[in-house]
């Protein structure tokens, strides 16, 4: 069954051809000319004479006519004569037609897996190819071969010459349309080329801009005729369009992953999205499917409990009558790190908050909270430090010392404690080092602590109330807390297993107190928690430079642990603080960051390697020695040296071609002056891609664009019959000028008859006949 828009185009074309003898494309390509002969001029003189006679006769007739009748009848008669005269002058269309058998035509046939999808009444896209190009009797191939010297190509990940369509295997795992056009054009350079025919579903997934391939074709005047196969919409299909997972997470971290689902034909049905961690189901989230074609975001939660490179599969069980079942599953490679991330918590006075926060994250093996607590002026108590010298002088005074941490928590400590340089360092910790900063509430925090106007205030996600500069105005409020819309789904504020349970739990929690009047977040910041009446900010965050900042102006979140309404073994307080701290250290870069553009490549497909290298002050360095140590699936170690790209400071790149299927470990290591700066490990999986099955419907807009930009035309299986004639008209190569008569167009006869009958009818109606 043809799809709507293409059917109406086809109908319009056949109606046009009925009236005007040729199809619109012929008029578009040709130029109008007249080819009169001597006899034409004799006839013309006769026609003019008749015209003059007619005019004069009508002027003289009086009878019982009104002037208007005479004018209409004169006009009609003269128009009839004019049409006759036009035909006598023999109008023609001058066309340059491609000379038969003198020109070459490139025929590019999609050889990728998506061609096997059977979405046309049970017939696959490949069936169409077999039927139209398959053998001696196949109509399209025969018609093309009659007029052109054909060169056949197959294309998927690569482009190859083939002798017949029997060479097609339809197992390509990518569709690189642009690359195919460029390759075919190169191969056919130097021969008279009429154009190229591309037979594909258009599901290009190369991920590169097509313009690079189209501009040379346009410049060379090679029109591309695209034949789109398959349907523009599946009637019954569920697809996992996208899964957003972080590249790496801490072991035991609670993941909240958005899965984007699209569907057709199953609106309103309930399906479940399952997550598998190498064979073990770790999440199962039910979702009610939205209206056809509308995307639905499903939020699934699970915990990454095993360390290492883990392959998570997200899937929706295929429905019995689904057209494409291969797009119901997506895989994501996530590195689950089992490291201990350092956080510095600085508190300006003995506070209960410190005790309870420490206690909440004490059991978390992946968090190391070094605590510095001031007990009296210049007297500090250190807890969780690495050795006897660590933090002995109080808050770090050098960037190198501070930037060892991934996150900083500032408690009730006045801005005056810090030197201007330390305040700047804290701001740089966020913006340049990419760390996280959290400020708690307290009498010496925010504006009450004198932070207004400092570099730290600049990076905070909230506006400081600078009228409260000295902390003497005695602001104090006891309030309940509720999550905002963003907070209801944010990973840090998930204090129960499901979104609903978490939202309900927040409303049950006892009130906390605040002494900092913070009611406004900065533009670009996100409010996650707010006071019960919505007037105060309880938790907000923003990205700032390379890092992020959080504001939690609460001074006694420990009430969520200690309050009499909270059961003794309740884990809410612990969960909140663990999630908050884990989220803070998540994604904070090291001195060396290994960056792979993708987590999956195919065999023999080059893998780009990229590293970003900083020194201990987190300033980019360009003269370090960087190597990628690649461990292949057979445990063989390969060293790939990496060079500074010269495009960006601190960026090093190289590439690598995997020759085995399986998991590759890529450890990038940087040294400077013989000293190790750091290393970072990334993983990549080498496996055949199944990207062919996603968004595998026919991509008409893309194919139309290719045709339009190169001067060709776009066809579907239903309109492909006119392809051969069109190439002859539009195509380049060796051409010959051809004239086509227009005087015998049915539309002239129709016009003539209409006018004559119109004149007669008018006379009848006026009683003049």
């Amino acid at each position: 069954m043809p799809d709507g828009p293409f059917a109406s185009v086809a109908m319009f074309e056949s109606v046009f051809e009925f009236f005007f003898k040729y199809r619109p494309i012929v008029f578009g390509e040709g130029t109008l000319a007249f080819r009169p002969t001597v006899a034409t001029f004799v006839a013309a003189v006769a026609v003019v004479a008749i015209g003059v006679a007619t005019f004069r006769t009508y002027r003289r007739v009086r009878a019982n006519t009104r002037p208007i009748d005479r004018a209409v009848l004169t006009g009609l008669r003269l128009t009839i004569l004019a049409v006759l005269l036009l035909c006598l002058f023999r109008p023609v269309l001058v066309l340059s037609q491609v000379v038969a058998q003198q020109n070459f035509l490139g025929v590019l046939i999609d050889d990728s897996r998506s061609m096997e999808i059977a979405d046309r009444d049970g017939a696959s896209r490949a069936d169409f190819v077999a039927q139209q190009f398959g053998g001696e009797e196949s109509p399209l191939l025969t018609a093309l071969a009659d007029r052109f010297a054909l060169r056949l190509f197959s294309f998927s990940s690569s482009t190859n010459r083939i002798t017949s369509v029997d060479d097609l295997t339809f197992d390509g795992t990518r569709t690189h349309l642009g690359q195919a056009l460029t390759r075919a054009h190169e191969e056919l350079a130097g021969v008279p080329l009429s154009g190229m025919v591309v037979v594909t579903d258009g599901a290009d997934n190369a991920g590169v801009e097509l313009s690079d391939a189209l501009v040379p074709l346009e410049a060379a005047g090679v029109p591309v005729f695209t034949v789109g196969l398959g349907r523009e919409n599946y009637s019954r299909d569920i697809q996992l369009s996208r899964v957003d997972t972080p590249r790496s997470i801490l072991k035991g971290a609670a993941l909240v992953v958005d899965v984007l689902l699209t569907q057709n034909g199953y609106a309103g049905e309930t399906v479940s999205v399952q997550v598998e961690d190498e064979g073990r189901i770790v999440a199962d989230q039910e979702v009610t499917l939205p209206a056809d074609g509308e995307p639905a975001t499903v939020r699934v939660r699970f915990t990454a409990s095993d360390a290492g490179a883990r392959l998570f599969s997200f899937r929706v069980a295929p429905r019995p009558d689904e057209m494409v079942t291969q797009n119901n599953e997506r895989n994501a490679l996530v590195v689950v790190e089992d490291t201990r991330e350092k956080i510095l918590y600085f508190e300006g006075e003995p506070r209960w908050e410190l005790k309870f926060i420490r206690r909440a994250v004490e059991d978390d093996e992946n968090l190391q909270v070094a605590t510095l607590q001031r007990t009296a002026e210049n007297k500090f108590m250190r807890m969780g430090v690495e050795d006897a010298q660590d933090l002995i002088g109080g808050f770090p005074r050098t960037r190198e010392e501070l930037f060892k941490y991934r996150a900083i928590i500032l408690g009730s400590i006045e801005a005056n404690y810090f030197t201007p340089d330390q305040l700047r360092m804290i701001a740089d910790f966020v913006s340049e080092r990419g760390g996280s900063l959290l400020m708690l509430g307290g009498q010496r925090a925010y504006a009450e602590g004198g932070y207004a106007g400092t570099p730290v205030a600049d990076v905070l996600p909230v506006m400081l109330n600078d009228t409260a500069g000295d902390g003497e105005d005695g602001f104090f409020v006891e309030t309940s807390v509720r999550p905002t819309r963003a907070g209801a789904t944010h990973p840090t504020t998930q204090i129960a297993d499901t979104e609903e349970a978490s939202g309900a739990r927040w409303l049950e929690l006892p009130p906390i107190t605040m002494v900092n009047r913070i009611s406004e977040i900065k533009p670009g910041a996100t409010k996650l928690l707010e006071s019960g009446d919505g007037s105060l900010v309880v938790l907000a965050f923003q990205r700032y430079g390379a890092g992020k900042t959080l504001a939690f102006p609460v001074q006694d979140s420990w009430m969520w642990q200690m309050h009499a309404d909270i059961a003794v073994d309740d884990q809410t307080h612990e969960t909140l603080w663990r999630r908050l701290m884990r989220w803070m250290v998540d994604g904070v870069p090291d001195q060396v960051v290994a960056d792979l553009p993708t987590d999956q490549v195919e065999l023999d497909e080059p893998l780009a390697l990229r590293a970003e290298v900083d020194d201990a002050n987190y300033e980019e360095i360009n003269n370090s020695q960087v190597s990628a140590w690649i461990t292949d699936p057979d445990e063989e170690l390969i060293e790939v040296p990496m060079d500074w790209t010269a495009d960006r400071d601190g960026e090093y790149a190289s590439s690598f071609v995997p020759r085995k299927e399986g998991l590759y470990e890529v450890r990038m290591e940087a040294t400077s002056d013989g000293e190790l700066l750091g290393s970072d490990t990334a993983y990549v999986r080498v496996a055949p891609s199944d990207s062919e099955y996603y968004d595998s419907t026919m991509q008409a807009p893309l194919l139309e664009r290719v045709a339009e930009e190169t001067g060709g035309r776009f066809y579907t299986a239903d309109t492909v019959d006119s392809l051969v004639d069109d190439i002859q008209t539009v195509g380049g190569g060796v051409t010959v000028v051809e004239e086509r008569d227009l005087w015998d167009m049915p539309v002239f006869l129709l016009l003539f008859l209409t006018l004559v009958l119109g004149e007669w009818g008018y006379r009848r109606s006026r009683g003049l006949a």
Partner: protein
Amino acid sequence: MRPRVFVRAGVIATALIGAGWAAPWPTAPAVHTPLVSRAAAPAAGQPGRPLFRREDLRPTLKRPSANAREFFFTRAIYNGGGRRWASWATDFPKADRQFLTILDRLVDMDAYEMENAIQLDDPAIRRFPFLYALEVGNMYMTQAEVTGLREYLLAGGFLMIDDFWGTYEWENFEAEIKRVLPEYQIVDLPLNHPLFNTVYNIKEIVQVPSINNAQGGPTWERDGYDAQVKGIFDATGRLMVVINWNTDIGDAWEWAESPYYPLRYSTYAIEMTVNIIVYAMSH
């Protein structure tokens, strides 16, 4: 004695004398009247009857200045028995106030200046994660108090025990605390425990005598000859209860301003308590 101790003792003494002279808390004189005193206690009623209504005991927290404060020196009101059934109120509130005055000078902490006494079965006890209880040799808790204290400690609260002497009182306290935390053992706290180093480095455990025994002669009472510091830890190793046995730290605060009370004892008492509080607030 080393000069450092003299300096500290000097600071403490000055603070106390200053506090005494200045007649603190002039804003609401009615409230400074000791809410409970030893003299008043026997007249208050029969054993088993509530000694004071809760509203009488906690008016200080209704003041705006109590809002948003970080630390309250909180005294546990427990059910007593026998001859000294109101033993929880020993030294109250003079000791509490004098100690808080000194604490304010020594530690940069937002501590509320006034006493705060609370019953063990009051749910509001959870607002105060530090609790002080003394004279526990005469403690006979009700079941509600046992439950209240147990949940308080397990949720994260901290209890400091003081001023009980000899075998008989120990046995009574041990029996009572076993009702609260039957699954946890009482252990000795060695001097290398971080508790003895949080703010001040304490090198020896001193027997702090009551005012009556401080002028020479034996410092012990009954058969409690050796001062000891013991503790109870929870399953994760967190110290929940610190027990000062055969010593009277509270009397040292109460009489710290007295020229007749030896500095050595009040210095130790205050250093030890500051350490315990700062430890409780960070561990």
